[in-house]
């Protein structure tokens, strides 16, 4: 009988069946055996056994990710029997979820450092966790949403088995996100020959060939400060999905296709009568009770009266920053920037959840 691959599986509150956003603050819970997607691991591969599942809230972890990840590893250690340690720890798949991906990756990083057990997670390549953790954590590529659950699990099983048995990974075939680890190999021709060959091909019109793709770091130089805001107009933008009650532009709760421009001039404050949150990625209860908790209009109005701020732009811009593709976010940003500059505002306060 082949030895079973024993896995500890870590899930967020949603995939662990403990609730939605309202449960995002829950502390770690341990369950014997597999839960939710963990069952898929066992169904797809009879030699896999999920010995236990950790379920924890996304907010609980993301609000202090380094510390919480370390605590979670301690929690896991406490649940395990030293004589029957797992072969692998699997976190997620987290797809494009920002908080989930972040803590899955953070957890894997701590496990690499503290336990002698391999670990991995699976995320969509645009997940913010990738840039911070790609070098230290093994991440299998997944789709952006749960439709790709089965292929993500298959990928994780394949890679997980290799990690547990010490087989070397190969990012293109294994579907992992490249970690930037340099592996030396002996090429058939010298570098000089290869370079000349590449140049000759380029001269013939074959462009884009490279042995080493240059990383692109998209950073923007900070815009100069406004030394005296008491004379300036400040604009408000939010990705927290605060829109007028009724969502007149029908902005989507995730993967928003548009942003809205809404008037502020009738309002000295925001309230549940006038505004609501349409963001699908966080518990909207508190935002709906008092939208100022996302878009602080009440305080800003007071600051204008006190002279701390010159004035507010009487239009604000809102979208939903939940699973927004980078391309779209860039387009929104460009459009909003142009409008704000046109209106004469000099600075922006952007609030996110």
């Amino acid at each position: 009988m082949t030895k079973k691959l024993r896995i500890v599986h870590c899930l967020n509150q949603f995939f662990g069946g403990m609730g939605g956003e309202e449960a995002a603050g829950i502390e770690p819970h341990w369950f014997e055996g597999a839960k939710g997607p963990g069952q898929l691991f066992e169904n797809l591969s009879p030699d896999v056994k999920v010995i236990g599942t950790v379920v924890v809230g996304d907010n609980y972890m993301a609000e202090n990710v380094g510390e919480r990840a370390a605590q979670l590893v301690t929690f896991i250690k406490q649940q395990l029997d030293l004589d029957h340690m797992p072969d692998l720890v699997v976190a997620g798949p987290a797809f494009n979820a920002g908080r989930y991906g972040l803590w899955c990756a953070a957890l894997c990083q701590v496990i690499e450092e503290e336990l002698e057990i391999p670990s991995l997670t699976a995320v969509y390549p645009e997940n913010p966790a990738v840039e911070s953790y790609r070098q230290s954590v093994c991440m299998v590529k997944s789709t952006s949403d749960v439709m790709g659950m089965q292929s993500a699990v298959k990928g994780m099983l394949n890679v997980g088995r290799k990690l547990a048995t010490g087989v070397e990974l190969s990012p293109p075939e294994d579907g992992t996100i490249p970690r930037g680890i340099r592996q030396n190999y002996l090429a058939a021709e010298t570098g000089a020959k290869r370079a000349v060959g590449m140049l000759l091909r380029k001269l013939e019109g074959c462009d884009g060939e490279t042995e080493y793709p240059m990383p692109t770091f998209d950073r923007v130089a900070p815009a100069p400060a406004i030394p005296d805001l008491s004379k300036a107009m400040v604009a408000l933008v939010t990705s927290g999905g605060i829109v007028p009650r009724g969502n007149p532009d029908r902005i989507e709760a995730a993967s928003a296709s548009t942003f809205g421009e809404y008037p502020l001039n009738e309002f000295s404050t925001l309230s549940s009568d006038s505004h609501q949150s349409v963001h699908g990625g966080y518990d909207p209860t508190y935002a709906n009770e008092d939208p100022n908790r996302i878009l602080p209009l009440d305080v800003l109005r007071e600051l204008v009266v006190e002279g701390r701020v010159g004035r507010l732009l009487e239009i604000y811009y809102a979208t939903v920053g939940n699973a927004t593709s980078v391309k779209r976010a860039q387009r929104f940003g460009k459009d909003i920037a142009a409008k704000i500059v046109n209106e004469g505002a000099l600075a922006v306060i952007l609030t996110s959840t």
Partner: protein
Amino acid sequence: MKELERAGLPTAHICTIVPISKTVGANRIVPAVAIPHPLGDPNKTLQQEKAIRRQVVEKALHALETDIEDQKVFE
């Protein structure tokens, strides 16, 4: 956010998950209270909440008034 800065508008990003803000390249980052209520706290009185909200907003204003060379978290 980067597009706003590219257009010359200093932007203060009030957000809870600072590592994400840093990764995507925000320059002026202001940590908020919590994900579902970045500028408030339902466990406090209305008065206290407003005071907290004001504190965070003031930090954002300070960030807008401060020249920086690189990404900075304004605690």
